[in-house]
């Protein structure tokens, strides 16, 4: 293979090219998204936050079994629901959830599902969502 030797350029031409490149960049649009004021574009199928319909959940524990990193644990909730006699519902730890959507796929009653909500930052030192918290919208969850 032949290596191409860099030819001798006229002095200052390379510098001027660099200067022009820098100047052209100053006319481009900035890529910064100023997050709280303006939201970044999210695709239609973007999913993050898991929601739970308490009335539909039958407590089959399939979501707990299918969760690859054991983010879902079943939890007892004292609640009248004729379809859920054992009164167990899933809770989700978003600290370890990888949003693989296996729980949503396997759920026989479509009780557990993912949405595009992604602003789950909180001041508590835990990302564990209890079943009641999973059924509430994100604003009403105590953070």
């Amino acid at each position, binding site marked *: 293979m032949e290596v191409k030797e860099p030819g001798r350029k006229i002095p200052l031409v390379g*510098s001027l090219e*660099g*200067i022009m*490149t*820098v*100047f052209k*960049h*100053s*006319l*481009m*649009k*900035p*890529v*910064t998204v*100023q997050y709280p004021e303006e939201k970044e574009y999210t695709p239609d199928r973007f999913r993050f936050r898991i929601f739970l319909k308490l009335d539909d959940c039958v407590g089959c524990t399939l979501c707990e079994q299918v969760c690859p990193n054991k983010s879902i644990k079943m939890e007892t909730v004292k609640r009248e629901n004729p379809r859920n006699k054992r009164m167990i519902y899933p809770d989700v730890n978003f600290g370890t959830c990888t949003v693989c959507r296996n729980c949503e796929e396997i759920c026989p009653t479509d009780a557990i599902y993912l949405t595009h909500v992604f602003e789950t930052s909180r001041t508590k030192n835990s990302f564990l969502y209890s079943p009641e918290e999973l059924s509430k919208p994100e604003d009403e969850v105590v953070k």
Partner: protein
Amino acid sequence: MSLLSRTYSIFSILGYYASTFITYLIDSIILLLVAAVAIILTIYFFRKYMARVQLRIGPNRVGKYGTLQLIADALKLMGKESILPRLRDDLPYKVAPILVFTGLMIAFSLLPYGSFFWIGDVFISNSGVGIILLFAVLAIMPIGELLAGISSHNKYSLTGALRSVAKDISFEVPMMISVLAIVVMASARTPESLNIASVVSSEILPYGILQPLGLFVFYIGMIARASYSPFDMGESESELVSGYSTEYSGMRFGLFYVGMFGTILLGSFIVSLFYLGGYNGPYQWNLGLIYLLIKAVVVIVISFTVWLTMPRIRIDKFVNLGWKYLFPISVINLILAGFLTLYLGW
């Protein structure tokens, strides 16, 4: 009418000496304030421009579009504790930043700024030997940097100061020779060829077109005088922590910072006055200041683009550049200027 005579006419009741004193005092204070605001605007513009080059937004939180960010920074610097090194040389350590700032401000007061509608000619001093005075005052600032480096008792400061002195020595001579070429050309057109105002008004064709080599050398000289990249040997951020200003904190550091950006502003004024036609143009009795400002802003944009493009060159390479390239180029430019003046009568 000029700014001076307007102020004088207000205070003329007080008699000659008192009114002259008060006139110069008030005009100097006005100049100080205007120059400080202009420097703050320059710093703001630099931060915005650098951000846009790097595809960022830049300061945008304090005030609308971040306009008050620099004032907030200045207040922060004033409120900070000044930490002094224990083994410092006390007097030079404290004098150095003041020397840099004072030299800069005196240099600002020596320039003519053209005229503006009602105010008339804007100048503080109209000395007959303004050019010599200007470059003599500009030579004060390196002394401040040297004092800062030596008195800090810090190896980084000392190395930075020595580098900055080596840099100053190697570019000042070519710069002064290219100024001499301007004086040579101006002397054929005006009897007062050392007065900045008459030099500027003698530019029928801007000297930058007649002496492109001189413009090149002088512009590189002004970059080196303001000591920003590619010639920021005095600071050498990546090698010497912060060069001669390593041991400075609080407002003393702020004065060095202001000195640097002020020199960029001053340099762009000088380049546009000497080489780009200054305040000459149609309706210059009303719009002269505007013309000068537009030219200065263009030069500032070019300076900042150069700053953001170039990496720092090594100190020995810069000394080579100064003595082996810039010096002969400036001498050739001087000879060409003499030839054009004497034989072609341009």
